[in-house]
């Protein structure tokens, strides 16, 4: 399978601040890829470099087979981009926005008509053609923005934080739309800081402080990190257990989930060590099992400072 | 109360320190304007380029030319070769005016007759042209009086014959320097911008960003917010006034002849009114764009055109003269010029001060009524 995107040693500095630190990766055609990371991790900057919105300080990016630096116009014909700001003209109507972007993408009248009804359908906007965009509820506006960004059926679609600030119902509808686009064969790149959305992606690239920390499919990543010293303590007294284990220096992280306490125990023979503490403090009613890590666990683990006292 | 005001004031001050553009505008605009108005701009019409078509070519005609070019008003711009070339001289802007001395000039003068000389001038700028015509008449009348006296003496009448000994005297600005006239006006103009436009925008900006709502939730009253904000612009405006006055003293020799106290008092009264206008504007506009537009339409344009800053009010069309009575700028400029240049005291400029006082009472009242009824 060929690659839709190939990035090698991409770097972007803003003054002395390194936003993206020589990252390399490739994206296979037709995949849905999620860039995951906290604010400031470098996700948006990476996307902007791939779209040609920002010039990389160094490094190279091949998008849809073209070098972004050398043939930006070729790249643009093949990509769609939607930013976190929903870049629609708020003082134009739904119809006028679609017509404008269709015109800008050079669609013929027939194509435009065809795509217009497509957008109306997928964005659930039938009957609202003549509403001003600023009067639309956020969820609709967002889907309209996506519709406008893919009017020209781009091979690659970049979505920068498309779901920030919307409720879960709308978020799910939006992901359905993404699934539909992907079904039509488009490669989709999404940035998000909602880890649960990562499960919708075929591939995940986790970023932290400008670097890629993890790259792979959700299952692959989970498999890769299956031997993390992560344990689940099932107990009737989760709060007491939590308070006890948290004090131990070798417990690098602990969290309560209902009647369970999840702990990272970075020590040899962790199970007996945990048992020891709990018994010593008079807690007998518990069961320790080895837990398989969630993506969140892995993300938290990988983005935690390597040195110093971990915070809880 | 004072602590709250102080808090707001300090916040504004810190924000302003970081807002480079506004800071640049506040410092650079007055400086730029001062330099332009002080050095570049004036109405003083001098050294008018005058060309001559002398068809007489006599001692007498040369004497007449001499009368023109010995004043500082006219500079010799060349001889026009013939009547048909006059067009070209003016069209090509080689001369602003052409003096045509007729063929029989000397004979008529010696016979003691009246002679008409022609003066053709570029009237596109009506103001300059009118002034030049005044100069021409002045030169010729003086010369005529001279000729008459000589003629009478020759005929044996030796009474003193100037007719009238005309003694013009100029008070306050004997060299009639434009800069001295424009600087007080400029202070008013700059104060208008600083005290109306900037506070209006500053309040509306907080409205746009929603921070004003936030502050209003805290136990701070709208009045305290306003006082805190306006205090900053009040201080800035005063600083700008002091700056402009000191710079114009150094560069243009503009001094304050009257009482500094009266000057300060006038400025303070004026600022109370104008700052309130700024606040008032901010209460009924919701975007910075709109606030800027309204504020500049209400301050910059009328002050520049209608307050007597540049254009004399007495020459305006009557309806517009009436409009000027509604503008605080009109009274402020008149008071400022009087105090700074003429050394006028309170009793002299009472007529300018009391409208300013009314203004400083009415506008803040309206603003605070609106604020207490509707909030921002």
């Amino acid at each position, binding site marked *: 399978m060929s690659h839709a995107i190939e990035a090698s040693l991409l770097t972007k500095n803003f003054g002395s601040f390194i936003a993206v630190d020589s990252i390399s990766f490739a994206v296979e055609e037709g995949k849905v890829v999620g860039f995951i990371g906290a604010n400031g991790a470098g996700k948006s900057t990476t996307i902007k470099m791939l779209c040609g919105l920002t010039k990389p300080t160094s490094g190279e990016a091949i998008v849809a087979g073209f070098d972004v630096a050398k043939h930006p116009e070729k790249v643009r014909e093949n990509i769609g981009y939607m930013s976190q700001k929903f870049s629609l*003209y708020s003082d134009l109507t739904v119809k006028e926005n679609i*017509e*404008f972007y269709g015109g800008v993408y*050079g669609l013929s009248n027939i194509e435009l008509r065809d795509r217009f009804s497509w957008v109306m359908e997928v964005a659930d906007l039938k009957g609202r053609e003549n509403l001003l965009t600023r009067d639309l509820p956020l969820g609709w506006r967002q889907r309209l923005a996506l519709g406008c960004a893919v009017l020209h059926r781009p091979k690659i679609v970049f979505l920068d934080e498309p779901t920030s600030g919307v409720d879960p119902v709308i978020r799910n509808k939006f992901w359905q739309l993404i699934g539909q686009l992907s079904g039509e064969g488009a490669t989709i790149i999404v940035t998000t800081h909602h880890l649960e959305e990562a499960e919708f992606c075929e591939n995940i690239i986790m970023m932290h402080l400008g670097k890629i920390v993890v790259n792979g499919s959700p299952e692959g990543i989970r498999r890769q990190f299956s031997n993390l010293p992560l344990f689940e303590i099932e107990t009737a007294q989760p709060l007491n257990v939590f308070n006890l284990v948290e004090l131990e220096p070798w417990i690098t992280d602990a969290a309560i989930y209902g009647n369970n306490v999840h702990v990272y125990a970075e020590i040899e023979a962790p199970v007996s060590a945990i048992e020891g503490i709990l018994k010593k403090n008079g807690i007998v009613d518990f069961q320790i099992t080895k837990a398989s890590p969630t993506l969140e666990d892995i993300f938290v683990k990988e983005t935690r400072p390597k040195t110093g006292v971990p915070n809880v | 109360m004072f602590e709250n005001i102080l808090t707001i004031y300090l916040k504004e001050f810190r924000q302003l320190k970081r807002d480079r553009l506004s800071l640049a505008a506040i410092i650079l605009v007055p400086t730029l304007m001062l330099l332009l108005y002080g050095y*570049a701009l004036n*109405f003083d019409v001098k050294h008018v380029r005058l060309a001559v078509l002398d068809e007489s070519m006599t001692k007498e005609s040369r004497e007449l030319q001499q009368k023109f070019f010995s004043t500082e008003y006219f500079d010799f711009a060349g001889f026009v070769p013939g009547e048909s070339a006059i067009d070209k001289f003016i069209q090509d802007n080689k001369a602003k005016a052409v003096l045509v001395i007729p063929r029989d000039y000397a004979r008529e003068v010696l016979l003691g007759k009246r002679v008409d000389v*022609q003066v053709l001038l570029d009237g596109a700028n009506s103001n300059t042209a009118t002034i030049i015509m005044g100069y021409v008449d002045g030169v010729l009348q003086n010369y005529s009086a001279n000729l008459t006296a000589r003629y009478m003496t020759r005929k044996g009448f030796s009474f003193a014959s100037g007719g009238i000994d005309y003694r013009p005297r100029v008070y306050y600005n004997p060299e009639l320097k434009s800069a001295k006239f424009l600087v007080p006006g400029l202070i008013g103009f700059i104060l208008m911008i600083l005290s109306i436009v900037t506070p209006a925008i500053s309040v509306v900006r907080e409205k746009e960003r929603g921070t004003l709502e936030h502050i209003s939730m805290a136990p701070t009253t709208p009045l305290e917010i306003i006082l805190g904000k306006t205090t900053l612009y009040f201080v800035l405006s005063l600083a700008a006034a002091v700056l402009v006055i000191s710079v114009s003293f150094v560069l243009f020799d503009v001094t304050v002849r009257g009482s500094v106290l009266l000057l300060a008092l006038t400025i303070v009264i004026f600022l109370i009114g104008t700052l309130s206008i700024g606040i008032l504007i901010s209460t009924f506009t919701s975007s910075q764009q709109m606030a800027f537009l309204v504020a500049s339409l209400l301050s910059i344009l009328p002050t520049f055109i209608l307050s007597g800053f540049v254009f*004399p009010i007495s020459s305006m069309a009557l309806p517009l003269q009436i409009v000027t009575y509604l503008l605080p700028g009109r009274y402020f400029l008149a008071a400022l010029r009087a105090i700074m240049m003429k050394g006028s005291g309170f009793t002299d400029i009472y007529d300018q001060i009391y409208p300013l006082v009314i203004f400083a009472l009415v506008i803040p009242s309206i603003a605070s009524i609106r604020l207490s009824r509707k909030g921002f």
Partner: protein
Amino acid sequence: MKRILRVVRKEFLQLRRDRRMFGMLFVAPVLQLILLGYAATVDVRNIPIVICDLDNTRQSRELISHFTGSDYFVPVAYIYDINEIDHYLKSGKAGMALVVPVHFGRDILAGKTPQLAVIADGSDSNTSGIGLSYASVIALSYARNIVVQRAEKFNLIKNPDDLPQVVAQSRAWYNPDLRSVNFMVPAVLVMVLMVITLTITSLAIVKEKENGTIEQIVVTPLHDLEFILGKMIPFTLIGIVEVLLVLFVSVYVFNVPLRGSVATLLVLSLLFIMVALGLGLFVSSISKTQQQATMTAQFFVMMPMLILSGFIFPIENMPKFFQYITYLVPVRYFMEIVRGVFLKGDGFADLWPQTLALFLIGAGVLSLSVYTFRRSLR
């Protein structure tokens, strides 16, 4: 081409929705025309004068009537104590004072030369300068009357023209009635055109930056130049409409003679619009917010350019250094063009130096602004 038209259409649609801006396009020029047409006159008339007649004879009253009968002076008070003059001048109630001394009439009858003092408030340098020259003309013509009367009394002459006298027959070209309106109203055309086109262009791009729509545009295959052109075409059309509007009002409401051809004016206006659009684009590219753009455009571009354009203050009165600076101010050339076409009937043949200068500045400004615009996108 089709893509450019899409942008043009979009701009018009947006403009139509922005009522406030739409209003400004038509209210602003009318307001400026009224203010500048009726108020912005530097002609000096109706100078308030205080008259101090210490003589109070037939002769003094005759002289005073020469002053008060003219358009230039309006008497505000008649006083008989010379010390009161100070108050009138200091309070600004009078701009000038006329003092007729005691024995004025007696001296004239006795063939002596009496003094006549005219005092001007120099704080308004322009008014008092012109006022003094009017006063001197009145005083000297009165003086001549005295001489003529005396000569007649001694049977020296038979009629007044028998004494030597040089009189100017002045004729003002281009504006024979010396109407200030003829000079100022064409200038409004320049001002309106600059303010409108520069303001809307300077907002046009920064608005898309603030709203984030510009990023969306950049990732489309729309070329930068297509985008700029698409934005400029509507503003150019608006500019032309403004020219026609102001032209109509100037000619039919203010009766300003339009001696040159409308076509010349329109073609050269187009050239100037290019310059203004270039400047607007430049401001827009270097600004981050609409607020910045408006402030920059207003205070650092339009105001200084207007002041240095010869709009109100004649360029030839400026010191040499500033005169050189005005050569860099495009408005200066357009001001000369518009006044030339209106008042002198100039055509291309007369205006080619200004046209060339405008063209060069325009080309420079446009390329600079396109360059900074593209850079601002990266």
